[in-house]
C-alpha cells in the first residue's frame, strides 16, 4: 500500500464510541467512589475540624493545590492551541476535562473566602499570625485600597469566573467539533487562545499575590506569580501522564495514547521541574544576597521553627531527585516509572503549597502537621476526581475530529 501522504494520515476514522467510557465502566466507578470519599472527607473536616485558623489553613492549602492543578489544565489547553501543537491532541481532551472542574473549585472556594478573616491578617478582626488588626499597621494602611475585603472578593470572583468561563468555552467548543467535524472550530480555538493566555497570565499573577502572597502582607516578591505558575504546570503535566496511563491501560485509549506521548509529556515535565527550580532559586538567591530584612524574614521563617527540614525536603523532592530521575529517556517511556514520578510530583506540589501557606498562618508559625491536612487534601482531590469523572463520562476521551489527530497518533520521538 502506497502511503497516501507523508505521515499525516487524513481521516483516521475513530468513532466517539470507541474512545468514550461506557456507563458503569470501572474507571467511572472509581471516580464516583473518589468523589464520595471526597465529600465524606469534606463533611468530616467541617464537622470535626473546629473551623478555627488551623482548619482554614489546611483547607486553603488543599484548595490551592486543586486550583493550581485545574488552572494548569487550562494553561495546557490554551498553550496547545496557540502553538498549533499536533502531538498533544491525544491528551488534550483529558486536560479540557481537568480545566472543566474549575467551576467546582470556585464553589469550594466560597467557604474559605467567607472565612478569609481567619487566614488573611489584613482583613482586620481575628488577627491570624502575629500582625494584629490593620488599624495599627502603617504598611497595611498603605495597602488598604487593594487589600480590603470587598475588592479582594471582587478580584477572587473575577479570577474564578474568568477561568471557569475559559475552561468551559474551550472544552465545549472542542466537544462540538466531535459532533460536527468542522475544522473551522479549530481555527476559532486557536485564534481565541492567544487573548485567553493574556487573561490567564494576568489573572494567575494577581491570584498568586492575592491568595498566597498576601497571607504575609508585609512581604512581596515580583516573581511570585511565575513561581506559582511553574508549580502549576509541573502538576498538570504530571496529572496528564497519570490520566493518560490510566485511560490507556484500563480505558479505551489503548493505541491512542502511547509511550511517545508519555515521552513528550515527560520531557516537558523535566523542563518545567528545572524551570520551577530556576524560579525558586532566583527568588531565594536574590533575597539572600540583598539581605534586606523586610524580605529575608519570609525565608528566615522557613528555616526556623522546625521548617528547615521541610525546606530541604522541598528542594530535594521537587528538584534534585526528579531532575536525575527524569534525565533518562527510558524512564520517560516506561509507564510504571513515569507514573511513579508523576504521583511523586503531584504530592510534592502539595508540599510546596504547604510550605508557602502554613508558616504564615499556622499559630506561632511552627511546623506542626495536623490530621486536617490529610483530610482536606483527600476532600479536594476526591471531589475533583469525581467532577472529572462526571465531565468525562460521556464525551470521547480524544478529540476525534481534530484535524491534527493523525499527527498525534503517528509521531515518533528520536
Amino acid at each position, binding site marked *: *500500500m*502506497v*502511503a*497516501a*501522504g*507523508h*505521515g*499525516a494520515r*487524513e481521516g*483516521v*476514522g*475513530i468513532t466517539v464510541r*470507541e474512545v468514550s467510557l461506557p456507563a458503569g465502566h470501572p474507571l467511572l466507578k472509581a471516580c464516583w467512589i473518589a468523589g464520595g470519599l471526597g465529600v465524606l472527607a469534606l463533611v468530616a473536616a467541617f464537622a470535626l475540624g473546629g473551623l478555627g485558623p488551623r482548619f482554614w489553613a489546611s483547607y486553603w492549602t488543599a484548595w490551592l493545590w486543586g486550583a493550581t492543578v485545574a488552572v494548569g489544565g487550562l494553561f495546557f489547553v490554551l498553550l496547545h492551541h496557540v502553538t*498549533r501543537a*499536533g*502531538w498533544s491532541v491525544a491528551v488534550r481532551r483529558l486536560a479540557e476535562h481537568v480545566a472543566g472542574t474549575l467551576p467546582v473549585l470556585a464553589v469550594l472556594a466560597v467557604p474559605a473566602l467567607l472565612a478569609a478573616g481567619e487566614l488573611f491578617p489584613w482583613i482586620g478582626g481575628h488577627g491570624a499570625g502575629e500582625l494584629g488588626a490593620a488599624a495599627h499597621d*502603617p*504598611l497595611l494602611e*498603605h*495597602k488598604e485600597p*487593594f487589600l480590603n475585603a470587598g475588592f479582594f472578593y471582587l478580584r477572587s470572583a473575577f479570577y474564578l469566573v474568568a477561568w471557569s468561563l475559559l475552561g468551559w468555552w474551550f472544552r465545549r467548543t472542542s466537544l462540538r467539533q466531535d459532533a460536527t467535524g468542522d*475544522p473551522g472550530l479549530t*481555527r476559532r480555538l*486557536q485564534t481565541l487562545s492567544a487573548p485567553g493566555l493574556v487573561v490567564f*497570565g*494576568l489573572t494567575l*499573577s494577581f491570584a498568586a*499575590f492575592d491568595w498566597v502572597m498576601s497571607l504575609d502582607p508585609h512581604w512581596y*516578591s*515580583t*516573581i*511570585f506569580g*511565575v513561581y506559582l505558575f511553574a508549580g502549576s504546570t509541573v502538576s498538570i503535566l504530571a496529572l496528564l501522564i497519570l490520566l493518560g496511563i490510566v485511560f490507556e491501560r484500563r480505558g*479505551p485509549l*489503548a*493505541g*491512542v495514547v502511547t509511550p*511517545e506521548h508519555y515521552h513528550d509529556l515527560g*520531557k516537558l515535565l523535566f523542563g518545567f521541574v*528545572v524551570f520551577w527550580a*530556576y*524560579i525558586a532559586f*532566583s527568588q531565594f*538567591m*536574590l*533575597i539572600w*544576597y*540583598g539581605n*534586606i530584612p*523586610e524580605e529575608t524574614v519570609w525565608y528566615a521563617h522557613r528555616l526556623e521553627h522546625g521548617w528547615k527540614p521541610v525546606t530541604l525536603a522541598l528542594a530535594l523532592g521537587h528538584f534534585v531527585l526528579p531532575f536525575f530521575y527524569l534525565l533518562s529517556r527510558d524512564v520517560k517511556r516506561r509507564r510504571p516509572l513515569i507514573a511513579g514520578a508523576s504521583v511523586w510530583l503531584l504530592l510534592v506540589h502539595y508540599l510546596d503549597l504547604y510550605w508557602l501557606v502554613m508558616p504564615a498562618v499556622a499559630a506561632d508559625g511552627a511546623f506542626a502537621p495536623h490530621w486536617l491536612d490529610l483530610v482536606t487534601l483527600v476532600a479536594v482531590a476526591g471531589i475533583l476526581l469525581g467532577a472529572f469523572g462526571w465531565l468525562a463520562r460521556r464525551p470521547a476521551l480524544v478529540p476525534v475530529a481534530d*484535524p*491534527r489527530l*493523525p*499527527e498525534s*497518533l*503517528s*509521531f*515518533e*520521538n*528520536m
Partner: protein
Amino acid sequence: MAVADIPREPGAGVLPDVDPVERRPLLATGDPGFHGVTEAVSRPVEWKPPVGWYVALAVSLAMLGVFGVAIAWLMWEGVGIWGNQVPVAWGWPIVNFVFWVGIGHAGTLISAVLFLFRQRWRTGVNRAAEAMTLFAVACALTFPGIHTGRPWLDYWMLPVPNQMAMWPQFRSPLMWDVFAVSIYGLVSLLFWYLGLIPDLATIRDRAKSRVRQVAYGLFALGWRGSARHWLHYERAYLLLAGLATPLVLSVHSVVSFDFAVSQLPGWHTTIFPPYFVAGAIFSGLAMVITLMVVCRVAFRLEHLVTLLHFDRMAKLILTTGSLVGLAYATEFFIAWYSGNQFELFAFTNRATGPYAWAYWIMVSCNVLSPQVFWWKKARTSIPILFAVSIFVNIGMWFERFVIVITSQHRDFLPSMWDYFRPTFWDIATLLGSFGLFFTLFTLFVRFVPMVAMSEVKGVLPQAHGHGLGPFADEAMDPALDPDRGARHA
C-alpha cells in the same frame, strides 16, 4: 475502523508537510528539491558577491574603524572619556553589554529551543540566527573587556594560579557574567559548528579550486555523510540543543543578577531573571528579522526564508513582548504594593522624572509597537516587520538604559542626585560596536552557507523514506506537487 487497526507504517513517525488546518505547506514554498537547496545556498559562497556586499562591508569596516579609534582612545586616556560619573557609575558600557547579550539569545532560541519543539520551519533561519548570536556575544564581551580601567589586567578575572595568591571573587555577579557569557559564546560556537560540518562538506565537494577545497575541507573534518556518524551527530545535536536551552535561561538571568543582587530600588526585584530572558529573546528576534529581511532579498533566498518564517517570528515577538509588558505591570504594581517609598519613587521617577522621555520611548517601542502583530497582515508585511523590528531594538536598548541609569541617578540620598549625560565617546563606542557586528555578519554571509542546507533538505517532503521507490524519478514524485495537500480533503 477500530483504534487498534490504525496502520502504523514503519518509519511512519513523520510530521505532516501541510498544515491540516490552514491547508498550506509548512516549509519552503515551491519545493526546490535537494539540489535546488544546495545551489541556492552555495551560490553566495562561491560566486563573486554583488556590489551591495562590498558596500556593506565598506560601511561596516568604517564603523569598525570608529570602534577601534574609540577603544584606542579609551586605552590611552582612561574611562574618564565616558559619561560614567558618580552617582551613575555604571553607564552606557553596561547598557550596551546587556543589549548585545540579549540580542544573542534569539539565535539560541531558534537553534535550540525550536529544535526541541520540533518546529521544522526553523531550518530556514537557524544558521544565520546562530551566527548572529556568536557575533552579538563577541560585541557584548568587548564592553566588560574594555571598561575595567586597566584592561591589560583583565586576565585577573580568570582563576589562574599566580604569584600574588590572588583569586577571583566568585560571589560577585560580575564574575558569574565572565563565566556565563564566555561559556555561552563557546557553547554557541560548538553548536553552530556542529551544524556547519555537513554544509562545509557540501562546499568542499563542490569546490573548483584546491584552495577552497582545502579551506572548507579542513573544517569539514572529512565528513562523508556516514549513517553511523549521523547517528552520533543527531544525538550530539539534540543534547547540545538540550544544554543550550537552560544555558540561554541562565545567561541572561546571570546578567540580570548584576542588578538584582544589589539593594537599589528598581534593581533589587525577584522577577528580573525571567523578565530579562523574555526581553532578550524579544530583542534578539527583532534583530533576526532585521537581518533576514535584508539577506533573503540580497541573496535571493526568498523561497527558503519565507513569509511563513516571518509570521512565526512575529508571533514569538508578540508573545515575548507581552511577557515583558506583564513584567512591567507587575513591577509597577508591586512597587506600590510594597509600601516602600524608595521603590515607589523609583518607578514614578522613571515615568515622570527627568528621564521620562526615555521611559516612554521604551514603553511605546516595546509594548505598543508589537501589538500590530495581532494582525496577520502585519505579520507578513515586510515593511511593517522591518519597522517594528527596528523599533523593538531601539526600545530594548532604552529599557536597559532606563533600568541602569534611573535607579542610579536618584537613589536613597537626594544630595547625590544628578543627571547623567553620555559623552561623544559613549556614542561612538556604541555605534562602533555595531560596526564589529555588521563586519562579522557581512563576512559570514560571504564565506559561510547562510542557511542550514542539510537541515532544510532533511525536512523537505522528499526526505521521507517511503512513498518513493528506487526507480522513481524525482520529476514524477507526487510529493513534489504543491497541490497535493489540497486534494486530500
